[in-house]
């Protein structure tokens, strides 16, 4: 009697070698591009950094992040941005008052630390992370506030890949 459906016991083998090849290549490239930079910085959400050809990397100093809507010092929100500028109520002599106050606190901490280590207090450095669409007027306000708090060196954070 003929069977209605032949149930074969043949085992089906899946060729996983191409997948292994892809995995190996992917892992090789990911390991090659894996950052060995000791400083890990996550740019703030909403900031599109300007592109640059610079070869200089980051180091660990306080960061001012200027998004399209806010100004942060390290992780603390310090001031807001309305229409591409800081509202007049938050400004003083062209600088941003709350930013100046925050940076003065940082400066005092740095000076106390330097004193404890037997060193002379020196002028401070800051990393500045800023959206590329901002105008120089805002850059100037931020720099002016920092300058008043004796931070005179700025490391402008840029995207090295986009050029």
């Amino acid at each position, binding site marked *: 009697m003929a069977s209605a459906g032949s149930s074969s016991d043949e085992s089906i083998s899946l060729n996983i070698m191409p997948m292994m090849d892809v995995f190996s290549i992917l892992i090789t490239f990911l390991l090659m591009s894996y950052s060995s930079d000791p400083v890990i910085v996550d740019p703030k959400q909403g900031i599109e950094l300007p592109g640059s050809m610079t070869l200089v*990397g980051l180091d660990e100093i306080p960061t001012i992040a200027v998004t399209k809507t806010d100004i942060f010092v390290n992780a603390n929100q310090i001031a807001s941005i309305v229409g591409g500028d800081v509202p007049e109520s938050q400004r003083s002599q062209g600088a941003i008052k709350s930013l100046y106050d925050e940076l003065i606190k940082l400066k005092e901490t740095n000076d106390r630390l330097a004193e404890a280590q037997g060193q002379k207090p020196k002028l401070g450095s800051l990393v500045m992370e800023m959206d590329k669409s901002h105008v120089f007027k805002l850059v100037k306000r931020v720099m002016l506030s*920092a300058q008043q708090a004796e931070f005179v060196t*700025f490391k402008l954070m840029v995207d090295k890949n986009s050029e």
Partner: protein
Amino acid sequence: MSRKKRKSRPTQEYQDAELNIMPFIDVFSVLNTFLLMSAAFITLGVIKVQVPFFTNSEDQSKPKRTLEVKVDAQKDKIELTTSYSMAPIQPNKQTFAADDNGINQLHEALVRIRVDNKETDLVTLYSDDDVTYEQVVKVLDAIKVRRENDPLFISDQADEKELANKPFVFPKVVMGSVIL
């Protein structure tokens, strides 16, 4: 009738050797996932600039005739001005368009200045309020970053400090507009 059991000869059987690669694939998958999660797809760099500041310390250096280089970034053009600090001042002004081509020409002009004046390593950058930060960074790139075909601006007996300036055309940039 008793059947005599035939003595069987030892047969040589070839079996397919199979390597179990499933654990290997498991490890690869997990590794891939974590590498993809932690991969940084943008590489961050910095451009170092300074703002002018006042100091109480006395300037010990003797006044010297040096070249002062100023770049003024405006919305539609970029001006490059050079003059000497002492007579004869020999002022010179060049204007470039505020586009990629103009920025490349600015870079070439700055390289020529640096070749002729190796001791000058500082540029003062001015910018109008309405110039975008992106444009300012492009101008900073033109001032600071030494490109592939540019000459080296360090001497043969360069010390450690001088070698640190190897990747730059003008290592020092002061933001002249940032002043009360």
